[in-house]
């Protein structure tokens, strides 16, 4: 059991987890993307299931486990075509004004909401050409408030103005350097360079904003260390890179040179605030938990963590623990020192 994951010069200290299994309100339904506002407000997109489409939504809450609200809803079953309705809700990103941009991988468009969840329209034309959307997955705003969108189906990375005007793009389908196989998450570092989770090629690639390939993150020291369908990537202010190593149920941390330095496997040793509220109303669940000999060891682990973001302002790593319907929160400590061993 970790809780503190330390390497030379820094540590990731597990803080707490947020969420519970829930198709509405204080809970998540297969959260697949997360974005952090500066004031500790978080937005999560819930993919949910076709069988329970009411769970498709954006949840707004704080890192302190305060539930604020939810917006957006499932669209296909209602037969409407409003941008605020979703079939396959995917990436979420915030512009400098705090507006919330939400992608739909199936409908191939981006919905825009204000910070309170009021619809402000959207954009997106389905297609394979320049400026068209084909399975939009991960999204990230750059320092100029332009929106980068990962097209997962045709393996293109495209830049748009925040009102949806196409600016530029690069990428094609394949496994050569600079190509992609159903890419997913994206993040942008302080220099404006792009990091793309190249899902089908089991790697992460780094590019200049102009699309020049800089580096590939996919260490293959041995089979166990290889990435397995990474879904998301983020970069902190120090240049450390975090990869949601989805099928391996872990987060891999790389240093700025691209060398793997450690892993996180999940540390949810406690029950979240929302989770505890559910348990308080169900004493049988509490009893059932007490019978489990290795309860904490089972409970803490990530299961298919699909999304990850780093709140640079507050130096927090936020991991969407997708199959466990929660967010695990870590704080990065650059001054961490191990206590003396003979305490």
């Amino acid at each position: 059991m970790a809780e503190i994951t330390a390497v030379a010069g820094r540590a990731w200290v597990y803080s707490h987890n947020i969420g519970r299994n829930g198709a509405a309100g204080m809970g998540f339904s297969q959260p697949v993307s997360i974005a952090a506002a500066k004031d500790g407000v978080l937005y999560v997109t819930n993919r949910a299931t076709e069988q329970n489409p009411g769970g498709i939504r954006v949840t707004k809450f704080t890192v302190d486990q305060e539930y604020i609200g939810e917006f957006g809803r499932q669209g296909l079953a209602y037969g409407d075509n409003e941008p605020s309705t979703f079939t396959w809700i995917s990436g979420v990103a915030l512009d400098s004004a705090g507006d919330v941009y939400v992608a739909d991988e199936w409908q191939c468009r981006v919905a825009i909401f204000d910070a309170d969840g009021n619809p402000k329209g959207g954009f997106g034309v389905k297609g394979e050409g320049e400026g068209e959307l084909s399975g939009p997955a991960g999204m990230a705003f750059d320092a100029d408030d332009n929106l980068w969108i990962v097209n997962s189906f045709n393996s293109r990375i495209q830049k748009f103005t925040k009102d949806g005007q196409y600016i530029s793009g690069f990428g094609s389908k394949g496994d050569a350097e600079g190509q992609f196989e159903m890419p997913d998450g994206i993040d942008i570092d302080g220099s404006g360079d792009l990091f793309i989770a190249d899902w089908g090629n089991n790697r992460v690639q780094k590019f200049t904003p102009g699309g020049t390939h800089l580096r590939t993150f996919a260490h293959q020291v041995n089979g166990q260390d290889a990435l397995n369908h990474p879904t998301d990537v983020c970069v902190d202010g120090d240049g450390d890179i975090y990869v949601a190593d989805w099928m391996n149920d872990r987060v891999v941390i790389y240093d700025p040179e691209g060398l793997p330095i450690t892993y996180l496997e999940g540390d949810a040793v406690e029950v979240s605030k929302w989770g505890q509220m559910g348990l308080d109303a169900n004493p049988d669940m509490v009893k059932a938990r007490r019978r489990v000999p290795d309860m904490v060891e089972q409970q803490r682990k990530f299961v298919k963590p699909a999304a990850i973001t780093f709140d640079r302002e507050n130096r927090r790593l936020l991991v969407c623990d997708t199959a466990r319907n929660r967010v695990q929160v870590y704080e990065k400590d650059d001054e961490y020192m191990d206590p003396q061993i003979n305490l």
Partner: protein
Amino acid sequence: MSNKEDLALMAHLMRRAGFGATWEELEALVDKGYDAVVDELVDPPADRHGGKAELLIRYYPGCLLPGGNPVMGQANWLYNMVSTDKPLEEKMALFWHHVFATGNSKLDNCDQMLTQIQMFRELGMGNYQELILELSKNPAMIYWLDNNENHRDAVNENWGRELLELFTMGVSNYTEVDVREASRAFTGWTITPKLPRQPYGRYPWRFEYREADHDFGEKTFLGQTGNFNGEDIIDIVVKEPATARFICRHLYNFFVADEPQVPAWTIEPARDEEALDNMCNVFEESNYEIREVLRFMLKSDFFKEARFQKIKSPAEVVASTMKMVGSYQFPDPGLARICREPGYMGQDILDPPSVEGWHTGSEWINSGSLLARINFVADSVNKTDLPGMQNIISRMKGEGITTPDELLEGCLDSMGFLALSDETREQLSTHANEGGNLDWSDEAAAAERIAEMMALVGATTEYQFA
């Protein structure tokens, strides 16, 4: 160009040992040769990885741990059936699901059902003794048949009874005392207390052997006496000739030709006693290797000659039709609807009606289920923009199919080289002739004629047979 008879035989093999194959796939398989294809089916090459699980879970994350939601569990399995590159492995999972029928109606936990199905994929073509041992430790089965309630001082006979009655020897081959003694041997085989569904969803169930709850007393089972544990019971029971016959008859019923329902097996002779004897010999001589029985069976003349001798199960109707028309090659939206189709036809996969599983053969058919089957095929073939339908239409155009009888023949071949009775053929031919020749200058209209004819073929009695 492959010989039509070779294609028809390969279509037969792939219907039974998988969920069908497209014309293009059949041509490639015929080029490999029949015996080589059987060998690949029973021993899939290492570079094949089965269903596209990563793709499914990326776009349908709710299919990973569906919990009590049977629909997303069914969506998971159906997508595996149509996307797998190890079709016999998947078909064997369905076979064992028939035999070792475990149901979500009691479990309320599709995660564990899918774990059991995965176990069938991994062990289903392997050694039967190992499979039965793993089944005895499978948490879904333990809960399904109450072995978690089978204690040293309070024996529960449910698992012990079904092990003998439904999973190994079949009725009339053991006594009530044997049931009791087998059950005593499995005391203490249970499930570790598990994390409940709140607040983070369900966690895996795990097998636990509790020595303190095991009855270490002497037992007498099938004439042998000893301090038996569960492994010893399995070791004894798999060597019984009745077990070989019971399992091989199940295989024959599932893969070769419809047998009477299982409860009648003690009074009804096998459809082909010689074939069954030969399968039993292979089973015993190979030390209970299911793979070797399958290899022998699929290469045998009795299998090759059994075309259209069994009625398709609903899962076969749905998965093979999806493969034919090319739907859900990618996990598009709608899986949660289409995965319910087998249930509408009488086969809720992951939720059999009882531990006895489904009654098969003609019992698949009633007025409601037949309509559901016909409508599903008609709806599917009418989607002429699907890639499989596009391939069928293009090939028929490329072959210059024009006359009404060529149209009928082309549709029959596209649907698995179906053989019709003279009466059915005449009726379909009459209808085809009423529409005149295919006019390829209006490709949409030609496609509509093809889809209409395929829907009519799908409504025939003959199409209900595999």
